């Protein structure tokens, strides 16, 4: 079990995370928050790239920084900005990373072609990575993260650059992998996690806002999410009063999904809240700030 125990992180005087407490056992965890909320900082601490200013991170009761390579050999990590060597082909690059991960050359020779096939790159095994599309690079990244058959798989924005088909393939891949390991998937795209995550972790104001199942998190907005139709000219006035979650044109009118905490009107249909609704509701101030 991986435990984040009252961890805080500051860069100089700027606090990024405060008193974070989390526990991870086998399964997929979706780390969901807008950009800049501290997801990557938390992930970098889990991968020993950053040291906590306060608190500790334990794996099976042992501090991960004291465990050193005994901890790092258990992790597979795909960073948000996945760097690569342009003049290497994926086979060479994975060979190098295998050496860093302490995998023997022979074992790597057997494993790399299988992994590249797994991420549908078997035809590009000897092709220089400079010629790769963003999606292909990301798939190399996924392959390298699984190279050491990690007990803890940490993926920071892993679907960036993947097309819809690749996203589906990736989600299926993760579901397979999550059976006997901890998978932490950081994203700001709700659809990436809502179908596969056992639990969702949301960070807000430097602290953990939720750590729960999707159903439990969605309960927070029970009886508050509605849909209604109105004329286009009424929309702007309506938006000033209610938080609009989604809008689409239908039969010459506007169909709006929104949140109301005041109680229902007769022409409103109450609907079941989704994770995206909660996300938009919780981070509404941040969204407004970003829009301004």
């Amino acid at each position: 079990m991986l435990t984040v125990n009252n961890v805080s992180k500051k860069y100089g005087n700027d606090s990024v995370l405060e008193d974070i407490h989390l526990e991870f056992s086998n399964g997929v965890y979706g780390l969901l928050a807008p950009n800049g909320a501290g997801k990557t900082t938390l992930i970098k601490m889990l991968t020993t790239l950053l040291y906590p200013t306060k608190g500790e991170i334990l794996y099976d009761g042992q501090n991960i920084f004291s465990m050193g390579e005994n901890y790092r050999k258990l992790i597979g990590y795909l960073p948000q900005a996945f760097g690569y060597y342009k003049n290497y082909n994926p086979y060479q690059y994975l060979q190098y990373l295998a050496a860093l991960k302490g995998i023997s050359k022979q074992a790597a020779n057997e494993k790399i072609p299988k992994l590249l096939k797994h991420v549908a790159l078997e035809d590009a095994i000897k092709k220089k990575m400079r010629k790769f599309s963003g999606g292909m690079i990301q798939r190399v990244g996924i392959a390298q993260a699984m190279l050491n058959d990690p007990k803890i798989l940490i993926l920071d924005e892993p679907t960036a650059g993947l097309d819809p088909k690749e996203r589906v393939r990736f989600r299926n891949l993760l579901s397979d992998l999550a059976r006997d390991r901890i998978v932490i998937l950081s994203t700001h795209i709700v659809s990436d996690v809502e179908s596969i995550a056992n639990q969702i972790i949301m960070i807000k104001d430097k602290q953990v806002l939720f750590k729960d199942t999707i159903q439990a998190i969605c309960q927070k907005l029970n009886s508050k999410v509605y849909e209604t139709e109105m004329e286009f000219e009424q929309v702007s006035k309506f938006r000033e009063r209610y938080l609009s979650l989604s809008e689409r044109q239908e039969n010459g009118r506007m169909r709006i999904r929104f949140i109301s905490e005041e109680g229902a009107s007769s022409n409103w249909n109450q609907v079941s809240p989704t994770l995206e609704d909660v996300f938009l509701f919780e981070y509404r101030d941040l969204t407004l700030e970003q829009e301004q």
Partner: protein
Amino acid sequence: MRILLYEIRKAILSPVILALTVIFLGFNFFLIYVNSNIKDDLLSINQLAHTYGTEINDEMLQEMKSNYEASLAQVNDITKKAVSKTYESMDAFYSDRSFYVPETFSEEEIQFFNYTSLLEFYYFNSFHLEESYLSFDPIKIAEYEMKIYGISGPAAELIRNQYDNFVERFNEVKDNNEYKHLFPAQSIWDTHVLLFKTMFKSLLIESLILTVLITAYVMNFEFDRGTYLLTYSSKRGRRLWLDKFYAALIANVSILSILMVVSLTVYFSVFSYKEFWHVPISSYFNAGKEWFMSWWNLSFFDYLAAAVILAYLLIILFTLMTVVLARWIRNSYLVFFTFLCLFGVIFINQAVFPSSSILFLLGSFTPVHLILNSFVWFMQRALTFTAYYESITVLAWFVIFLLAVLYCANSFRKCDLK
């Protein structure tokens, strides 16, 4: 070991490093080529040394004298027939402008004249060797050097305190006859300057450029490519920094070896030193416009070996310096330019101190001054005043930068990689 090889491979296969190595080797060949006009003379000097031995003594002088006189008589026979003239010396023959030598004499005769002329030069200089050597005064030379650099006050006193050592070594060279050996004459062929200034300085500067580039390139490879998050979170972790340090060290030493071995092999195959490997470097004939008397009794081979070892130590030292810079500057090109600035600052540090200050003298105890003055390594000089100038400089800077590298390794282990 596998990781180390991967890191070395990155350095060695870099197109910039490969291209520069080829360009530098080409430049060294060019230097050898433009100076190759002396190679035939060096062959003749080797022949001379082979005939008479390199040690100058009465027996050798007697043999040289009789051969010289016989050769001169033969020259006069030829000239008498050709131009109806005889000469007291070869010097007088070459000073005669009444005929044009290449048109008047055959190629074979000209070669004989040249050999006799060489014999004359070495015979007379060897004959007057003792008085020529005794005309040197190490204190006068030191005072002259101090005057040129405007050294006065405590700095001058510090140098003068070493005069006993200067004189002691001068007398030692006299007593053990180190100076009494044949060697390519510095005053004519400038071979010491060609090898230890022109060639060595080029080799050192070239290796220095490659050292800084390779070290910065290897140490910052992951930061330049954005792969550091992956590599330093792998099982190997921050120890990869040390692997990179060792890889840079091995790559730099290898590149220096390639440049040295290739360039010096070509050099010695063009300029023959066959008979002179064991001649003391403090031979009188090696004293030219500069005063080349080593602090120790070193043969040419010993001196060359010592210079090569010092070159390796300097390259290792510059690797350490670059590693320290690369720890804090995470862009290889920026590291290179910062190093150039640092090199310049160290070079001009003496300008900060008055020339009467001891700090002015100590300001030359730097690897930068060493690398720029390879031709006077281990030689007696007022400015460097001690026989241990090279050892003190290298040792002091090694201690400083080894500690700095240890500190960097430790700080990198504990730093945040954002």
